[in-house]
């Protein structure tokens, strides 16, 4: 079956394509074949077709392999045929591309070849064709090439606008950075206003927005080395700003518009990629509510509903992704990395609960939250799980809800006055007698 007349592309761990800088996803179609007019080349069968602003991607979800044709090579796209005969066959859209002498699809080929997109699923060929024409007309891939050329010409990998700002205004600490940002925002204010005029314009401006965020991040990074005498507070606020900027950008958000019926599947994969970083920072577990906020903030526009998020998480069971949705007995839902093991958490809780202070007064969810580095609500879930395993037991009093290491199993009911030497109960009673 090895069809390899298109160059392969790399995919993320959860099977989403890795996008080029500035590339935006525009349309997705499931169950699509790609055929070449050259009979010697085996067709690609039944994969996911992704139309982006730069490329036409074809992804086989079973083997997690992807291939791509650059849109720059497209000479002409033929509209879907309308005839009695075509009503009974799968809809086809033919695309004429230029090909180099050795058969690769390139921008300035010597001859042309026709690729046929065969839609086997329930897709709307006209809508796809419209979207394709739209993308071809906007020629966004050219912008990237031009920017690249300019960078290599000037010999510095820095956007021209930033270079100009540097000449005018020396960077002095955070205020300098803030001033530069202010200028940047003002200069792009116009494009921002345009961006909000309508959704189509917004999609084409999305690339600029992300570029802007990238630019600011790069500058923050470079200036932190420049002002090495900055004090800790300054570094702290810089760090905060970097974090904030990093959280700005999913370059090509999956939207209902671009993905259609595949929406939840693609969203699910995108989400799996996204939560990796926040999960690491939160110690391997993060509340679904928090993910909802982070994810929507990263998307910026095209926000998703809580229901969509839940559906996307539920779909993880079907994919091979490194994260999972977990529902605690109390109903609290969290996202957890599969690598995180409960045993490890329980071991840490057990050692916390056996410290002398904890033996006397027990531990509260906030104590556990501090030790485990997680939110108190989640810490409480861990404590309740540890309780259900018999590791802890509870103490409810006017002072609150606390947990103690479980000593019930240590006591022999036939001799309630005896304490096993060197057991936890022994440690407990000596901790008690120390306190007087």
């Amino acid at each position, binding site marked *: 079956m090895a069809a390899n007349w298109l160059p392969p592309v790399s995919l993320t761990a959860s099977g989403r394509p890795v996008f080029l800088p500035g590339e935006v996803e525009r349309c997705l179609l499931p169950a699509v074949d790609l055929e070449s007019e050259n009979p010697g080349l085996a067709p690609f069968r039944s994969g996911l077709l992704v139309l982006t602003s730069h490329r036409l991607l074809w992804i086989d979800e079973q083997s997690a392999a992807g291939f791509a044709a650059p849109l720059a090579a497209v000479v002409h796209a033929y509209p879907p045929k309308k005839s009695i005969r075509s009503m009974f066959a799968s809809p086809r859209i033919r695309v004429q591309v230029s090909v180099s002498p050795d058969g690769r699809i390139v921008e300035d080929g010597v001859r042309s070849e026709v690729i046929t997109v065969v839609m086997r699923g329930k897709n709307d060929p006209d809508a796809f064709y419209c979207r394709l024409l739209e993308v071809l007309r906007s020629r966004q891939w050219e912008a990237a090439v031009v920017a690249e050329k300019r960078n290599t010409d000037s010999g510095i990998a820095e956007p021209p606008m930033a270079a100009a700002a540097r000449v005018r205004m020396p960077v002095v600490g955070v205020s300098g950075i803030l001033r530069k940002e202010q200028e940047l925002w003002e200069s792009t204010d116009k494009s921002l206003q345009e961006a909000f005029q309508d959704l189509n314009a917004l999609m084409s401006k999305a690339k600029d927005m992300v570029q802007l965020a990238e630019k600011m991040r790069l500058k923050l990074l470079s200036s932190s080395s420049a002002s090495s005498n900055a004090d800790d507070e300054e570094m702290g606020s810089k760090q905060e700003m970097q974090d904030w900027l990093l959280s700005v950008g999913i370059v090509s958000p999956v939207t209902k518009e671009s993905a259609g019926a595949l929406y939840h599947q693609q969203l699910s994969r995108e989400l799996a990629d996204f939560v990796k970083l926040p999960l690491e920072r939160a110690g391997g577990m993060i509340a679904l509510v928090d993910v909802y906020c982070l994810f929507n903030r990263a998307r910026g526009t095209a926000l998703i509903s809580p229901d969509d998020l839940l559906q996307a998480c539920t779909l993880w069971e079907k994919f091979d992704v490194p994260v999972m949705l977990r529902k605690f007995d109390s109903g609290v839902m969290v996202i957890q990395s599969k690598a995180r093991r409960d045993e490890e958490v329980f071991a840490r809780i057990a050692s916390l609960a056996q410290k002398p202070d904890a033996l006397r007064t027990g531990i509260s969810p906030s104590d556990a939250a501090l030790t485990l580095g997680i939110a108190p609500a989640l810490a409480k879930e861990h404590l309740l799980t540890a309780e259900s395993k018999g590791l802890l*037991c509870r*103490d409810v009093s006017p002072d609150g809800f*606390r947990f103690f290491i479980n000593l*019930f199993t240590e006591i022999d009911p036939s001799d309630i006055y005896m304490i096993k030497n060197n057991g936890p109960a022994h440690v407990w009673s000596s901790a008690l007698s120390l306190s007087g």
Partner: protein
Amino acid sequence: MQRLGDFKLPHFFNYPPYFTLQPVRETREKQVQLWKELILDYCRSQKIFVISLEEDFPLFSNPVVERSLSHEARQVFLAALVNEGRAEWIDKSHKKCLILWLRIQDWADYILNFVKENGFEDSVMTVEDIRFGIETRGTELAGIDRGVLLRALKLLEQKGKAAIFKGTSADDEGVKFSA
């Protein structure tokens, strides 16, 4: 070691979770077991036959750790004793509980043993003699609950070891033991 009157309390009496009804099954089973033992031991040493849920009971609160059992917890622990035949609800609303640190059968055996050891075969004793008389002083029988004693005596009567008859006053009965 903490004490309640002359009763020696176990270490875990100061363990705060001991006073919170545990929701996890295995932990609760162990907790219930420990409470049953403690209640029986305490009642036996203090010769307490009736625990009323409406009134304060010294064992059910610990001022040292500032914890006390909830009404539900008290009911659970007493109900566990009832299930084992070591206690009986006196009223239908389960407010008062008769604690049988010796079962009726055990009491009957104890009385028979007492009669034999003290040579009271073929002699007559009143119920009040047994409960408060000089003869039973220092034995488990001193201060025994009247209802419990009568039930134990009736059990002996059924076995032909005793005969109960009306005494001189209406509220006192006599019993004649036979070997």
